[in-house]
């Protein structure tokens, strides 16, 4: 074989490998281009019922309960319109907090509870020093106090 | 930002491995790129000056 042909073969081989890799990645994307489903989508049965999927939303304040075994936790995920209860056995990421975003991977059981086998914390794009965060928190509480009662 | 001590600075609030790890890998990447560029330059100059000398002789 001439060196020219050999080189061409390498190019074609490399490019087809690249094509296959891109194809595989795109295929992976197609099935979870939307990385997670919101509680509303889950309530509307838009999420797959027979296989594992990801649920994303905010952890409801005060909903986190630890079971006596110390490992199993239960909390409620919301998108403010709908709520989904979640049960998870394992270690929570450091940034997991009530009122903050999470993405949980798992399956829905028969009574609408989401059994997660992985929980990831999703943080937002805001970066600020702790003092500023505290001030923001205080202002929020103050405003909540001022709000007219219904 | 006052770290207080060197060990606090290295520790990065318990995240030293991740913070310093990513800075170290970035440094390695930059050094590698500059090294490859320097090698490219050396070999190219060697080759071209050699060709020039041969042309002069011939």
């Amino acid at each position: 074989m001439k060196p020219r042909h050999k080189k061409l073969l390498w190019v074609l081989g490399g490019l087809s490998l690249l094509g296959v890799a891109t194809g595989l990645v795109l295929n992976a994307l197609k099935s979870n281009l939307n990385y997670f489903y919101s509680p509303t989508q889950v309530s509307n049965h838009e999420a797959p019922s027979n296989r594992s999927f990801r649920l994303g939303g905010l952890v409801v304040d005060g909903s986190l309960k630890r079971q006596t075994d110390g490992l199993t936790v239960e909390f409620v995920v919301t998108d403010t319109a709908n709520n989904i209860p979640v049960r998870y056995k394992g270690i929570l990421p450091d940034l997991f907090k009530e009122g903050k975003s999470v993405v949980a991977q798992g399956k829905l059981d028969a009574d609408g509870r989401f059994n997660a086998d992985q929980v990831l914390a999703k943080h937002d794009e805001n970066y600020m020093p702790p003092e500023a965060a505290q001030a923001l928190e205080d202002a929020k509480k103050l405003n909540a106090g001022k709000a007219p009662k219904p | 930002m006052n770290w207080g001590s060197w060990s606090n600075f290295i520790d990065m609030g318990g995240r030293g491995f991740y913070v310093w790890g990513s800075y170290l890998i970035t440094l390695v990447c930059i050094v590698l790129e500059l090294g490859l560029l320097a090698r490219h330059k050396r070999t190219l100059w060697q080759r071209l000056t050699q060709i020039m000398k041969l042309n002069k002789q011939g």
Partner: protein
Amino acid sequence: MTINWFKYSSPATFYPLAGKMIPLFYALAAILTVIGLYISFFVAPTDATQGEAYRIIFIHVPAAWMSMFIYLVMAMWAGLGLVMNTRLSSIMAQALAPTGAMFTFVALITGAFWGKPTWGTWWEWDARMTSELILLFLYIGYMSLTAAIDDVRRADKAGAILALVGAVNVPIIYFSVKWWNTLHQGASVSITHAPSMAKTMLLGMLIMALAAWMYSIAVALSRARLLMLEREKSTAWAQEVLEQKS
């Protein structure tokens, strides 16, 4: 006053001019990196939610910006070379590719090192991360394609087509966090809203980005000079350059 751009785009003028400018860009990159790192580690405060782990942002975001921006510039030069057939354009495109690939790799790796302590995972196949990985494949594909074809003109043409087709990936990366639900958060800095970062954090990030710019210009110009000398080795100006140095 009209500037004769074609004069500057001729290799005989570009080669010595770039040679004079390169040390300046390296020096600026070094100075900006020192200032940027100082602000990033000694001026910028701790983040309220992420603690110190967020300090990876000072390389992650500049690297990610560069990875996308360099690709667009590379595709532009490659396209210009395809249409105008100017010698300098295709050389600039090829000179930028390795630096763009390097920044893409750095963005992916630092992202993994940031994701592990904050999200709880090194890697997830979400739209932002996957499209950035495709960007790395595109750079590698472009470099291997142009390197593998011996005929310079054909290599330039094939590379240009790949670079231009791949350019659609850049807006996909940028807007992925808006178009789909992703694990990756939205942009902290954009033209549509005020930056959602403390001022000193933003300043550190912008100075580091500026340093990355200077570095990229310096390295790409150095590489362009080598490619140029190699392609034009038998011309009078190249012979003169070789004569002077040897």
